């Protein structure tokens, strides 16, 4: 069942994706892009779970199920976030976070 690709490759890919997501979340100024960065983080977690499940614990399906649920929850999260972003666009006529700053320290 091992197709020759070692487990480490998947883990490195997931780690890179995770930190790309975190970096994107912190540097991007567009709300939609920030949301995409969060999706990147969640997908890196999915890869982790899948790889661990397939390589280390192939007799149980816990990791697979977990990633299915993560996908579903991410979709609902995106739905609420996009609804709020649409509302922000109506109020502020922009979705740049620099302009959505009525409250500051």
């Amino acid at each position, binding site marked *: 069942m091992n197709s020759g690709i070692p487990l480490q490759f998947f883990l490195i890919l997931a780690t890179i994706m995770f930190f790309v997501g975190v970096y994107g*979340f912190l540097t991007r100024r567009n709300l939609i892009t920030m949301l995409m960065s969060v999706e990147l983080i969640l997908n890196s977690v999915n890869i*982790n779970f899948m790889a661990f499940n397939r390589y280390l614990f192939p007799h149980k399906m816990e990791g697979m199920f977990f990633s299915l649920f993560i996908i579903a929850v991410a979709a609902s999260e995106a739905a609420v*976030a996009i609804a709020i972003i649409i509302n922000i666009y109506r109020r502020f006529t922009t979705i740049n976070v620099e302009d*959505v700053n009525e409250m500051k320290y």
Partner: protein
Amino acid sequence: MRHELLLAVAAMLILIAEIFTSPARRKSINLFAITLFAIITIAGFIPVKPVGALFGGMYVSTNVATLMKNILNIGVLLILIQSVTWLKKDENADRVSEYFMLIMSTLIGMDFMISAGHFLMFYIGLELATIPVAALAAFERYKNKSAEAGIKLILTSSLSSGILLYGLSMIYGTTGSLYFYEVSRLFTGSSLQILGFIFFFAGMAFKISIVPFHLWTADVYEGAPVNITSFLSVISKGAAIFIFVIILYSVFPVIMATWQKTILVTSILTMTIGNLFAIRQQNIKRFLAFSSISQAGYILVGMIGGSQLGMASVIYYILVYIFSNLGAFGVVIAISNATGKENIDDYNGLYKTNPRLSLIMTLALFSLAGIPPVAGFFGKFFLFAAAAEKGFYFLVLVAVFNTIISLYYYLLVVKAMFINKNDDPITSFRSDFPTRSALLICVAGIFITGFASVIFEVIKEISFGN
């Protein structure tokens, strides 16, 4: 299980009820929903056999979990009563049932989270407890600040759950299971597991707003509608702390020394920074936001011991905190509904015009600060005693100093109400029945939870029982 089932049924009933009421009679849904929720709250206390497991051990019901759910129910009931006046405003009248539905689904999520026996159930409960709150924070869609609070909440909470999940994936990769009991059995404390734990801790710290991860708190609390702010600061935080205590004690006892160090640093930071920022706040909601950050720091002090006494003191403190903070927020809600004013300066001379409101506010702030006659003192005392029992004397010393700092800024508000002069004070007004009754319950709760030692005894007995 009855909490979750009843809540789900009630949420559906409220949605159906909206279909069958004409738009002119929409406001009667308030009464219907609150009655339903009061019945659920009472039904939660009926002693039926609460111990057992469902879904192959993913859902575990224990006496402690039932107690925690009941405490959360009491808090939510108070918040629902407090929000009636706000819901009766014309701009909110068309979305009343949505409000109740969202709050109840949030509470279902918290209940599932508290009863979780598997990290998947925990994660789903956590998300169900946070996503509707973002919709609630953006509830006043005609206000810029509300939308801003909503987006800040949903983005930070989804980032934090991403971080938490990354930690969970490492824990899964090293132990091969996600059941709480199996993870605790297979946990060895290798470096990868500790890294996973730190990711997990960071994710939870976002939810509880522990200091390095607290930056969203003040903005969200200021922008959200006042009753959602009180919900966030009391119920969301309380539920997250409950499950955090359960997971730390039951899943990660192997690396107790590690998480004690983490908590030691973060709790000192949380208390100090929360207090120092609270001093310079002008908006009363931001003020209470920073005060609730520092309260989370005190709760961490109670958790650090890892003993059953720590668990009991945390549960007791949350109960006290619900009454005290909802008392303070109740006054803020009453004044905000009547006048729309939310700055501390506006409270100058409040005692002259609204003596009863200012007395309640004083009492609630004294309880938050921990002044002896009221419940907050006993809550803090048990928290610090639980930490001192395990020898964390330095931490307790820092916590006591922080209590003194917090006394200063709580008294600033009291001084504004009683001593400061104001040419244009808030006019004398009489709140409607729901607001007054909720405030009365809070005041009664502040006194009863403090003086009736039987309450702490019961909590202690239940948390030692498992």
